[in-house]
């Protein structure tokens, strides 16, 4: 009994300790961000490897998600004779929910895991300690550009996902299933509000971007410097980011749309 209690306490303390370390790391990364203005090259490089290289998977998934939404929603809506509402339903689904959330999940798998593995391996091969020996702060030099690159990339990727999805739905709905082209766009424009829907979607994706990159960078920096430790840290990044994104999405949705 006491042993169980002790292990519970050990687990709780360990979790809080990790949380505290993650928070202090975030603070020192934020403190290192102004220094990036002097070295925009680092930021460009990271934006490339995080954002540009994620572009393909985002565009392809957005297109297919939009097409599937087109088919599924059309089949449901046509029963009520409301197939002209296909446009707004697709757009609202994508802009409010699927755009930010699916992008964040793909981002965790495509970019987050790579970030963790890269930083973890840098730690395992003692590159980070080497930098410290040369009086180069690895947080400023390695972590800060990656963090900012991720935070910049995420809302842009989510916006690209949503717009590609809207055109995917257009392709299926208007192109294949014969929904009226005019009502697809006109109803969409009259139902989707810039402030309530688009802006809230962007806020969501910014929050997800911060959380996803923060977790990825922290797990890499905090990894046990062995090959097993790095592999575990990579797994944790994907799992924790997905859970955090889904949980936060509920909270944000409740805050944005729950009380009207």
């Amino acid at each position, binding site marked *: 009994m006491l042993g169980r209690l002790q292990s519970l306490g050990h687990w709780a303390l360990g979790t809080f300790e990790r949380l505290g370390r993650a928070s202090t790391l975030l603070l020192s990364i934020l403190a290192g961000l102004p220094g990036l203005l002097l070295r925009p090259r680092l930021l460009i490089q990271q934006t490339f490897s995080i954002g540009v290289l994620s572009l393909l998977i985002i565009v392809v998934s957005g297109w297919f998600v939009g097409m599937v939404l087109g088919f599924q929603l059309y089949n449901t809506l046509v029963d009520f004779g409301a197939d002209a509402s296909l446009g707004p339903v697709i757009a609202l689904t994508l802009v409010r929910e699927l755009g930010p959330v699916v992008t964040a999940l793909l981002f965790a798998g495509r970019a987050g895991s790579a970030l963790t593995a890269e930083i973890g391996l840098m730690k395992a091969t003692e590159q980070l300690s080497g930098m410290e020996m040369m009086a180069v702060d690895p947080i400023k030099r390695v972590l800060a550009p990656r963090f900012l690159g991720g935070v910049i990339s995420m809302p842009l990727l989510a916006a690209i996902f949503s*717009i590609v999805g809207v055109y995917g739905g257009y392709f299926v709905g208007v192109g294949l299933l014969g929904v009226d082209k005019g009502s697809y766009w006109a109803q969409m424009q009259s139902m989707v509000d810039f402030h309530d829907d688009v802006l809230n979607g962007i806020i969501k994706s910014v929050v997800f971007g911060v959380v996803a990159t923060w977790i990825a960078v922290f797990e890499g920096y905090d990894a046990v410097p062995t090959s097993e430790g790095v592999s575990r840290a990579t797994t944790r990044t994907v799992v924790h980011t997905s859970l955090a994104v889904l949980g936060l999405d509920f909270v944000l949705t409740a805050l944005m749309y729950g009380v009207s």
Partner: protein
Amino acid sequence: MQARTLEIWVGLFVAAGFAALFLLAMQVSNLTMVGGGSSYLLKARFENIAGLKVRAPVTVAGVPVGRVTAITYDSDTYQAVVSMRIEAQYNKLPDDTSASVLTSGLVGEKYVGLEPGGDTEMLKNGSVIKLTQSSLVLENLIGKFLFSKASGGGK
């Protein structure tokens, strides 16, 4: 990879991202209507606005010219006060314009339809539309229909 190509790719990515945001704002949502320049305020009092919502379109001859910005209840007259913003370019609405709460389609959204009158005076910012026609409540209509059916059936 060459630094130059790297920068070009990042530039393309950022441009594509902003283009997507721009399209979301312009093509998908109704930013063009809301942010569109100057406008003036009209008010109208209705007996019943059942189903009319804030941001519903205001139309003249079926053409959207503005939006409903606020709906309040006047407890002195027991009426609903609907505030509407009309785009400034549509400033030639006669003083005796009438407003009615209409429905687009059978189950569609409610909107405010303005019917211009023949007065030479024009509505100004803050004017109140005097002639109004309330929203059609289906239950009342069915009730009236049944009532007239029942009273007519005796003959």
